[in-house]
């Protein structure tokens, strides 16, 4: 089971991506929700808002404890800011991976952009990348592997327990990073190792966010949306 921190941000997008790999997922809002998690995704959103909610509800302490118990962490964009050991203009938050991050590294929304890159360790074919008011990773310390460097900054990196990406794989049709993180958590993601999930589109997350909370819970299961084969008896492939 993988959790997605559900305080603010693009939670549904990550839940949808993981379900496409047949991985059991759960939104995580409080300490009880951490039970049985192999990994936790800290999604995109506003890092100042997320940091404030993490600390007032003491969830930051739970994340740090779970990390030391072996739960793997992945931060996308704002999530990467929360996980960094050092920030250029402010005090760090969780400080669980030795990288230095500059917030709003590119400028305003007009500087948001899409790109692609080859990351042989993850995929044979180029991976689409979406940067939304993204931070920049300026440097990585000992014990941190750089997965993707672009010009003067690092876009993706990992340590044994933590993955960080300054872009948003959950906003693209590529499942490569979600597959990679699921494996990092010791899970066995299903589906073919294709670069792109052709059934994904930019509104796919909306099946989890219909107009009322009641409808959100009974949103159409992915099995009906996705024709591809999935092992429902053993969704985590363990």
């Amino acid at each position, binding site marked *: 089971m993988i959790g997605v921190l559900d305080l603010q941000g693009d*939670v549904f997008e990550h839940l949808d991506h993981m379900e496409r790999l047949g991985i059991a997922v759960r939104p995580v809002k409080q300490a009880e929700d951490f039970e049985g998690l192999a990994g936790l995704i800290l999604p995109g959103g506003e890092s100042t808002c997320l940091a404030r909610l993490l600390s007032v509800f003491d969830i930051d302490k739970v994340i740090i404890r779970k990390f030391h118990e072996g739960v793997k962490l992945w931060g996308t964009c704002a999530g990467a800011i929360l996980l960094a050991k050092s920030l250029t203009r402010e005090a760090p938050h969780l400080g669980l991976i030795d990288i230095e991050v500059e917030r709003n590294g590119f400028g305003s929304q007009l500087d948001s952009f899409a790109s692609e890159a080859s990351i042989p360790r993850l995929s044979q074919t180029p991976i689409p990348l979406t940067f*939304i*008011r993204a931070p920049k990773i300026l440097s990585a310390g000992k014990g941190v592997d750089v997965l993707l460097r672009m010009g003067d900054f690092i876009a993706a990196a990992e340590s044994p327990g933590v993955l960080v990406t300054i872009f948003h794989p959950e906003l693209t049709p590529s499942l490569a990073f979600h597959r990679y993180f699921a494996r990092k958590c010791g899970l066995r993601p299903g589906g073919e190792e294709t670069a792109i999930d052709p059934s994904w589109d930019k509104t796919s997350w909306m099946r989890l966010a219909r107009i*009322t909370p009641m409808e959100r819970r009974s949103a159409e299961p992915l099995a009906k949306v996705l024709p591809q084969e999935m092992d429902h008896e053993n969704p985590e492939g363990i």
Partner: protein
Amino acid sequence: MDAKRYELNVQLAQMLKGGVIMDVTNVEQAKIAEEAGAVAVMALERVPADIRRDGGVARMSDPAMIAEIKKAVSIPVMAKVRIGHFVEAQIIEALKIDYIDESEVLTPADEECHIDKTKFAIPFVCGARNLGEALRRIAEGAAMIRTKGEAGTGNVVEAVRHMRTMNREIRQLVAMPVEEVTGFAKANGIPYELALKVRELGRLPVVNFAAGGIATPADAALMMQLGCDGVFVGSGIFKSATPAVRARAIVKATAYFNDPAKILEASMGLGEAMPGLEISAIPKEQLLAGRGW
């Protein structure tokens, strides 16, 4: 705006989901909002309650003031332009902030046309009272929608009415046989392709926030439970007795909108909320939600 730019703009709104966007009129308020956990600030000279009180023509704010706020915070900055005033929008785009609100809170510059938002690279959020209005704005290039509510009143009743209206119309569309969609779209002034999209998705095809009259943590959670993706709070914070405390409380209640114990905790000891206005006591010509169509 090319399709990719539009997609990036819709995606920025996705990042704001579950958050609170706060009206601020100076650097100090912007910092209070950021510290409280706002996901963005709306920079404007006067909050809607003061615009309502002062009367006269309300225009785009001084760009120098918006620029100062942009410099003071790291979260996204939005600013309002008048409905149909595409030159105000060009100015705000040149200022390189993050989002434009084409807003009925300011005095409309054009009573027939909204801004052709497809001509811009900067994203737009627009107000709507019903599904047809929301989809017309999306067809014009809006990347995000908010209910209009009745700004500056501290009274949530109109925001509730607009959200319920949208939801009702979405439910009708979803339940409708496809051959009835043409007539429904025609009657409600909805572009046909977008009506089909809503019918398939069971919701608006972009992020939809609630706005207009939200003044308490309970108001924010109410709008979230009615199915919006996040909330705007205008006058409700800085017209209250204790802005910083109230701002933090509304952020908590929005994040935990489904958890009554947490909303309770957030609602305690906040001091006086902003004074509220009964909608029926406002002269018809002073209602803001009727501006635009």
